[in-house]
C-alpha cells in the first residue's frame, strides 16, 4: 500500500468485525511503507492480529514466514516497474507451489497498482494510490465497503433548519418589512398570464392524475390561449420550438438505467469524498440541453461528492409565454423546462441529495414553481430584482409573478434562494443586497423559507473599484458578515462561486472554485454552488472530466482547511460596515420612491449607469384581478 493511502487516518464508524483475522503485511520495497503502517493501525484498532515484516525481504523469505505465521490475509506493498511485476508474479507462484496460496487472501498495493495489474500478477485485489484505509480494512474483513449497515446513510439536508429569520438589525428589518408589505399589498389584486397559466397547469395535472382526459384537454386549450407565438404554434399545430426535438423512445428508456444506478449508489463512489463532502452541501449546475446527458452529468457529479444539483433552462424560455409539454432535447445550452423533462431528470438524483429548479426570471416563474413541486424538486430560486434588472423581464410583471412564486413556494413547502446575480451586470452589492433582503422579507411574511444567495464573484464593482485587487477573501467575507449581522437566515453563496476569478486553465479554475468553496464554508455558509472547471469557457457542452476537476478541488480544499477558519483582514469589517450603510441608503430610497415596483424602474436597486436595465419581456401584461 502506498504512502498516499487514505485521506484520513480515522475509520468510518461501523460495526465490529464479525471475525478477527491474522494479517501479515510485507513491504517488498527496500524501505518501509507508511501506507502499510496506517493500515496496520486501523486493523489493530479493530482487534485483528497483524504481523508487519521488515522491508527488503526476498520472496522466498516471505513465503517461509507465511508458512510460519499462517495468516488469513497477506498485504504486499511494492512499487511497480518493468521487471518488478514479474518478481511479484513469481512470489505468488512460490506461495501457490508451497501450498499456501489457497489458505489466504493476497492483495498488493502501490502507486501504480490498478485492479487489472493485480489480476495479471495473480493477486485477489489491487489497491492504487487513492486507496483509503477503509477500503483496505474492508478487503481484509471480506466485505464490500459500502454495504448496507456498515456505513451510515446520508440524510437529505435541510438548508433552512435552525434559522429563526429574525432581523437582528432592527433598522434594516423595519425598512425591509415596510417595503415588503407594500409590495405584497400592491400585488394582491394584480395578476398576469404567468400567474393564470400556473393555476391552469396545477389544475391540468390534477385532472390528469384523476384520469380526467376531457378536463385536461379543456384546460390545455385554455392554457394555450395564454401562450406566446412559438408555444402556441406547438399547441395548435404540433410544431416544435426551433432548436428542439422530442426525445426518442430509446432515450426515454435509457433513464431507467440511470435510475438503477442512482438507486445503487449508496453515496459518493470514493469513500474519501463521502467523508469530506457529505456534510458540506455542494451544488453543481446542469443544463446541457439534453435531459439524458444531464442525467449522466448529475450521476457523475453525485459520485464525486455533489449533494445538490441546479437546473439551468434556456434563456429563450424565459422570454416565451408558456411551456411546452413532453420530453424535449434542446440543441443549445439549457434544458427545456417541462414536467416530463423534470420527471426524467429526477430519476438520476439520489434520494439523499437536493434538487433545485429555478424560477427567478422570465415569464413563466409561477408555473416553474408549480412544475418544480410536481416533479419533486426540493428547492427553487426566486428573485424579482435580478430578474427584472439584469435578465430582461419587465419589473411590474416580475413583481406580480414573483409574489405568486413566494406564495406557491410557501404552499408547496419549497425553500428558495434569493440570488443577487445583478451584481454581475455591475450593480453594487449593497443595492443588490437591499433588493434581496426585501424579497426575503416578503417571503418571510408569506411563511416561506428563503435562503440568501450573495455572489462570491469578481463583480464589475470589485473590478472597477479595485476592491478585490489584493485578495478574494475580504470582500466576500464582508458580504457574509453584513448579511449575518442583519438577519438570522441561511446563506448559500453562488452562483457559482468564484465567477470571473477563473481562467481557461482547468487547474487554475478548479483551484479558484475549491478555495472559494472552502472560504464560504469557513464563513458559515449552509451550501455553495460550484461550476465545472470549463463552464466559463466551454462555449458549448461542458465535460464530465471538468466537473470532476471542480469537485475534486472542492474536496481537497475542504480537506485542507478542515474545521479551521479563514480569517479576513481588518479591511473586511470596514467593507461590511460600508455595505450596511449603503444597504440602508438603498432601502430608504426605495421607501421614498413610494413603491417597490417604481423603485425598480427608477434604478434604486441598480441604475442604468451601473448596468441595470429594467426588462421589457411581459411589459403591459399585468392586469387587475376581476
Amino acid at each position, binding site marked *: 500500500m502506498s504512502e498516499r493511502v487514505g485521506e484520513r487516518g480515522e475509520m468510518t464508524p461501523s460495526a465490529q468485525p464479525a471475525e478477527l483475522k491474522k494479517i501479515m503485511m510485507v513491504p517488498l520495497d527496500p524501505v518501509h511503507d507508511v501506507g502499510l503502517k496506517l493500515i496496520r493501525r486501523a486493523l489493530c484498532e479493530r482487534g485483528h492480529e497483524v504481523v508487519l515484516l521488515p522491508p527488503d525481504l526476498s520472496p522466498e523469505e516471505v513465503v517461509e514466514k507465511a508458512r510460519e505465521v499462517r495468516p488469513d490475509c497477506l498485504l504486499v506493498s511494492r512499487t511497480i516497474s518493468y521487471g518488478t511485476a514479474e518478481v511479484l508474479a513469481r512470489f505468488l507462484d512460490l506461495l501457490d*507451489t508451497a501450498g499456501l496460496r489457497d489458505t489466504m487472501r493476497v492483495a498488493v498495493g502501490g502507486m501504480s497498482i490498478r485492479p487489472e495489474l493485480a489480476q495479471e500478477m495473480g493477486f485477489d485485489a489491487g489497491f492504487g494510490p487513492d486507496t483509503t484505509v477503509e477500503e483496505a480494512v474492508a478487503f481484509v474483513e471480506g466485505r464490500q465497503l459500502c454495504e448496507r449497515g456498515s456505513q451510515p446513510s446520508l440524510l437529505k439536508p435541510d438548508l433552512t433548519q435552525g434559522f429563526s429569520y429574525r432581523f437582528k438589525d432592527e433598522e434594516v428589518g423595519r425598512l425591509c418589512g415596510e417595503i415588503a408589505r407594500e409590495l405584497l399589498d400592491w400585488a394582491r389584486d394584480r395578476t398576469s398570464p404567468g400567474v393564470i397559466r400556473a393555476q391552469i397547469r396545477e389544475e391540468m395535472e390534477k385532472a390528469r392524475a384523476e384520469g380526467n382526459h376531457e378536463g385536461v384537454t379543456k384546460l390545455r386549450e385554455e392554457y394555450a390561449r395564454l401562450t406566446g407565438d412559438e408555444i402556441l404554434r406547438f399547441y395548435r399545430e404540433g410544431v416544435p420550438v426551433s432548436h428542439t426535438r422530442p426525445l426518442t423512445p430509446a432515450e426515454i428508456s435509457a433513464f431507467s438505467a440511470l435510475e438503477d444506478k442512482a438507486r445503487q449508489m449508496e453515496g459518493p463512489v470514493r469513500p474519501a469524498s463521502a467523508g469530506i463532502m457529505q456534510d458540506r452541501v455542494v451544488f453543481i449546475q446542469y443544463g446541457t440541453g439534453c435531459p439524458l446527458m444531464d442525467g449522466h452529468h448529475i450521476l457523475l457529479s453525485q459520485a464525486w461528492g455533489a449533494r445538490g444539483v441546479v437546473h439551468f433552462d434556456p434563456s429563450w424560455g424565459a422570454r416565451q409565454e408558456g411551456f411546452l409539454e413532453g420530453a424535449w432535447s434542446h440543441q443549445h445550452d439549457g434544458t427545456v423546462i417541462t414536467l416530463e423533462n423534470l420527471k426524467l431528470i429526477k430519476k438520476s438524483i439520489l434520494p439523499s441529495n437536493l434538487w433545485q429548479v429555478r424560477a427567478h426570471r422570465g415569464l413563466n416563474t409561477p408555473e416553474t414553481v408549480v412544475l418544480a413541486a410536481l416533479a419533486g424538486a426540493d428547492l427553487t430560486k426566486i428573485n424579482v430584482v435580478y430578474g427584472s434588472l439584469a435578465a430582461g423581464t419587465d419589473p411590474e410583471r416580475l413583481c406580480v409573478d414573483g409574489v405568486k412564486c413566494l406564495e406557491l413556494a410557501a404552499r408547496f413547502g419549497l425553500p428558495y434562494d434569493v440570488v443577487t446575480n445583478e451584481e454581475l451586470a455591475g450593480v453594487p452589492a449593497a443595492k443588490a443586497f437591499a433588493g434581496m433582503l426585501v424579497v426575503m422579507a416578503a417571503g418571510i411574511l408569506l411563511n416561506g423559507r428563503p435562503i440568501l444567495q450573495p455572489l462570491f464573484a469578481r463583480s464589475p464593482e470589485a473590478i472597477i473599484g479595485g476592491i478585490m485587487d489584493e485578495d478574494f477573501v475580504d470582500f466576500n467575507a464582508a458580504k457574509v458578515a453584513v448579511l449575518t449581522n442583519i438577519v438570522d437566515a441561511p446563506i448559500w453563496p453562488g452562483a457559482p462561486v468564484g465567477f470571473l476569478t477563473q481562467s481557461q486553465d482547468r487547474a487554475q479554475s478548479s483551484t479558484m472554485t475549491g478555495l472559494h468553496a472552502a472560504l464560504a464554508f469557513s464563513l458559515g455558509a449552509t451550501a455553495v454552488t460550484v461550476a465545472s472547471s470549463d463552464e466559463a469557457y466551454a462555449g458549448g457542452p461542458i465535460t464530465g472530466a471538468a466537473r470532476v476537476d471542480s469537485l475534486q478541488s472542492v474536496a481537497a480544499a475542504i480537506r485542507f482547511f478542515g474545521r479551521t477558519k479563514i480569517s479576513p483582514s481588518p479591511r473586511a469589517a470596514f467593507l461590511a460596515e460600508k455595505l450596511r450603510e449603503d444597504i440602508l441608503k438603498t432601502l430608504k430610497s426605495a421607501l421614498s420612491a413610494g413603491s417597490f415596483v417604481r423603485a425598480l424602474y427608477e434604478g434604486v436597486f441598480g441604475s442604468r449607469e451601473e448596468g441595470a436595465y429594467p426588462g421589457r419581456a411581459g411589459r403591459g401584461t399585468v392586469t387587475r384581478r376581476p
Partner: protein
Amino acid sequence: MLENPGPGGLSPTVVGIAGTAKNTGKTTTLNEVIRLLSEDNTPFAVTSIGFDGEDFDTVTGLAKPRVFVPEGSVVATAQPLLKAAGADFQEIRDTGVRCALGRVFVGRVSRCGRVVLAGPVTTRGLLQLVRFLSQTARVNLVLVDGAFSRMAPLCLASHLIVATGAARNEDVSALAGEVTGIGTVMSLPLLGSAKFAGDIESTREVELGTSLMVRSSVPGGVAMLRRAAKEGFLTVRVTGPVSPFALEEFVGLLGSELPHLRLRFVLDHPVNLLVGGQASRWPQAIASVTGKGHEIAVRRSTTLVGFTLNPYRPAFEESSGRYRAEQVDAAWFLKEMRKRTAFPLTDLVLEGPFLLKLWMSGISRKPLLER
C-alpha cells in the same frame, strides 16, 4: 499442491499457454491456437489466469494484440469483462470462482468478437473452473492463457506451450539455456513410469516441505534426513518450490555427511522446480543429482508441446520515461536459438502456424493428414 484426477492432468484436456515474461507473445500464440481450433471446428473453452486482451499493456502502455473468440466457443472471464465484450454470449452462468475483477462467469459465444480474459488466479480456482466447464458447460478442451511468467496454476494443464522471446532476454545463449532448462525439467520422468520399476525400492518416505526453496534451508533438510536415514534408499517427497542451487547444495552436503545414502526425490510436478527460479541452471542441477546416484521423479506432469519465439521487446527510454516497441532480427533469432537448443521452437509470425498446427494435432488427437 492440489490433487487432481489423472496422472497426466485433468479431463477435459487443458492446454496451458505460459510465458517466460510479459510481452513474449502469449496472446499471439493464444489467438493462433484459437484460429486453428476454429478452422478445425474443434469446440473449446478459453480463460486466463491473468488479464489478457486489453488494448494497452498494463505496465508498458504499449498496444497489445486482442483476443478474438469465434461463435460456439465458451469464454470464462470476470463478469464485468463479459458484459463489456465485443462478442455476444448466451447460456451465461456464474462459476462461483472469484478473481480481482469480480466473479468469473462463463458464456457461450453467439456472435464472434473481441474479449478481455480474466479468470481464476490460483490453482484451486482454476481446478474449480475446469471442473465447472467440464460438468456444466460440457467442454472437452480448455485453453488457459498464462500471465507474466506465472506457472503454478498451469500444473493442472495436460499440455503446455511456452511463449518466450527477446522480451525475456535478447542474449540468445542465455535464452536458449533457459528454454533447455524448462524443457529438461518438463521432461522429468513420472514416478509410475517403467524407468523406476525395480531399480531402487523405496520403503521409507520423508517429506521436505520448502527445505529446498532456498540454500539457507538446506542444512535443516539434511538434518531431517539424518534422523530418518539408515544406509540404503529413501524416497524424499518435496512438496514446495525447489531452487536448483539449494538442491545442488543439498546433495553436496548429503554426499559428505551421508555418503552411502541414495535418494529418490519425488516432486509433485515439474512446475515446483520452475518456480524455484533460474530455469537455465536446472540441467546442471539435475545432472549433479543423478550423477551422484540419486533420482528425480514427478508425481504428475504436463506434456511440454513446444516453444513459440517472439523477437519483439519493449525498450524503455530514459529521456521520455516511456516504452517503445522494438525487435531483434527475427530470422537470425530463430536460427540461433535452434542451434542452441533441441526443444521444438517456432516463430508464428515468421514461419506461420505450420508447426503449431502439428503440435495442436497431437493435442486434439487428430492426425494432420486427415484435414
